[in-house]
């Protein structure tokens, strides 16, 4: 088997993780290249997680949270957005393709959106090819 | 001495120079140095440049204001509500949108002009109210109005939108300033319920003459019913054209059965301060002798 993209998804338990579950029960299919790490809230995501995943060879990292205003913990998603925006600015300047890191608000009911986002991201990564900053490269 | 730029506009110098005369007279009598704004143009009126383009409007207004700035004036005065409105609104737009101001200046700089936004634009009655004061005005009156009942009409452009003007009534839906000036001159200016109603002059007067006249008739009839004034005193030259010149025509055409002499507040102030009635009221069309008689009769 040739190269297959590897996507690390860090998803909030209440929205995006639930959306992924729902996508399964509705039998929406999407590429099996995305793997969720469950966290209570997108506010739990540290920039180090994203960079660690990238240098370890993840081809893309997706952070999934609740829509603004809907955070189960009131405001964690806003904190996540601030951190993500700033991190993304820096990583882009360091030459990391912007498509490889993504933040999406996917509510617990947006199973279709979850499947679409993963499908789209997978296709994009196949277009871009393997992550060039993989450790040791 | 306080210096004030006299911004003429169009209607006043061409159609009702008696208002120009009165403003000059009254301002001098109230210790102002009147500075002419040579080269000033139309404000521009709402139906012209403002209806063409926002930037073009601002360029037109900034042209006038830059002339006042060149003369080192702190403020200028208008007798026409449209000029007062247009200049102040343009000023407001330029303050709110620095990018417009910048573009305006790019254009003005091609003829060596510059707009900074330093000049305040007053209308005649607010200038008197704020910079002279009612007490001072009272002191200067030579021919008091002797209880003359005035129907005051500040004029829409002198009131709204509130936020653009340097001076205004506390409640623009219950204006008092113009009335208080009439009272300082010795008259009475009671409240009436159509005081803020539109006189019907302006764009509507051009577009739909007959319909526009109904506004005037409705307003004046209510006023007559409620306070039966002897004189209609307006704060805006457009209101004067409607209240005097057009009223005379309407009367001739048999559209109205009343006759209410009308003056601009500048005329009334000039008259009370001692100006020659022939010049102050020289162009008045609705007969005004009775009013003049009452004011000057005993003098």
């Amino acid at each position, binding site marked *: 088997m040739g190269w297959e993209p590897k996507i690390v998804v860090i998803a909030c338990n209440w929205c995006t993780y639930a959306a992924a579950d729902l996508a399964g029960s509705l039998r929406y299919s999407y590429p099996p290249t995305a793997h969720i790490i469950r966290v209570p809230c997108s506010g739990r995501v540290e920039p180090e997680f994203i960079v660690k995943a990238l240098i370890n060879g993840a081809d893309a990292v997706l952070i999934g949270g609740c829509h603004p205003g809907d955070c189960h913990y009131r405001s964690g998603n806003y904190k996540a957005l601030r951190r993500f925006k700033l991190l993304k600015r820096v990583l882009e300047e360091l030459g990391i393709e912007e498509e490889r890191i993504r933040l999406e608000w996917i509510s617990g009911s947006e199973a279709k959106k979850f499947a679409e986002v993963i499908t789209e991201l997978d296709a994009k990564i196949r277009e871009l090819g393997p992550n060039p900053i993989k450790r040791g490269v | 001495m306080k210096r004030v730029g006299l911004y*003429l506009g*169009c*209607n006043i*110098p*061409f*159609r009702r*120079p*008696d208002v*120009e*005369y009165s403003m000059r007279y009254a301002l001098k009598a109230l210790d102002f140095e009147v500075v*002419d*704004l*040579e*080269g*000033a*143009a*139309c404000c*521009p*009126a*709402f*139906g*012209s*440049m*403002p*209806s*063409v*383009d*926002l*930037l*073009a409007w601002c*360029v*037109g207004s900034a*042209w006038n204001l830059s002339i006042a700035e060149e003369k080192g004036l702190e403020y200028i005065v208008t007798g026409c509500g449209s000029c007062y409105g247009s200049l102040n609104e343009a000023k407001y737009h330029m303050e709110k949108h620095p990018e417009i101001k910048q573009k305006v200046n790019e254009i*003005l700089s*091609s*003829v060596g*002009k510059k707009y900074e936004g330093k000049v305040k634009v007053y209308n005649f009655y607010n200038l008197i109210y704020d910079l002279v004061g009612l007490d001072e005005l009272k002191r200067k009156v030579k021919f008091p109005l002797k209880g003359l009942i005035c129907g005051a009409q500040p004029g*829409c*452009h002198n009131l*709204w*939108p*509130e936020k653009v003007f340097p001076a205004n009534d506390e409640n*623009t839906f219950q204006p008092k300033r113009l009335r208080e000036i009439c009272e300082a001159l010795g008259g009475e200016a009671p409240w009436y319920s159509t005081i*803020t109603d*539109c006189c*019907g002059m*302006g*764009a*509507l007067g*051009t*577009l*739909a003459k007959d*319909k*526009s006249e*109904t*506004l005037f008739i*409705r307003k004046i009839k209510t006023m007559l019913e409620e306070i039966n004034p002897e004189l209609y005193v307006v704060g805006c030259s457009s209101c004067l054209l409607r209240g005097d010149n057009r009223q005379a025509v309407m009367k001739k055409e048999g559209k109205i059965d009343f006759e209410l002499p009308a003056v601009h507040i500048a005329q009334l102030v000039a008259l009370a301060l001692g100006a020659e009635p022939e*010049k102050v009221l*020289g*162009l008045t069309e609705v007969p005004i002798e009775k009013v003049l008689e009452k004011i000057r009769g005993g003098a």
Partner: protein
Amino acid sequence: MEGNLIKLSEEFLQELWEEIEEMGMSVKDLRRCIQCGRCAATCPMALAGLDYFIKKIVHASILGLKEIFLEDSSIWGCQSCNRCVEICPMDIKPYELILALRRMCMRNYAMPSSTIDSLRNYYEKGHSVITAGYEERRRKLGLPEVPPTVLSNEEMRKKFQEVIKQTALAEVAPFPLD
């Protein structure tokens, strides 16, 4: 328009919105209008009985009925009294809409002839309104025959025209600027 039926078309919506946005009015703000009618009760256009007055104009704009404004001249009857701006509870600035619509019509050459006259006067003489016989009236009062405005100052008039030529008037005026 035939009879009393107005067709609502998606195509027009977009077109009008784009145009009025371009002319300085935010359609997003406009859409806040809940047609409460507060402006209409004291709008001079409504009180005078024009076919379209501010409340209807706002609604027609939200529906994108461009043709109405090109065919009906009501918007040119707005008195610019700004009362609507002052009392609008949704702060949609209806008067700014009127100006934006006029600007849109101007670009489609749908304006009353009086507007053209006043613009020509404005450009040529510096005054939108010049009433004949002013010299006589001024002389009678002992004022100089020609007022000390741009009209009496050739140098300033040239500069003034120079300035005005650089505005949008140059693009839309139905007369030459030279």
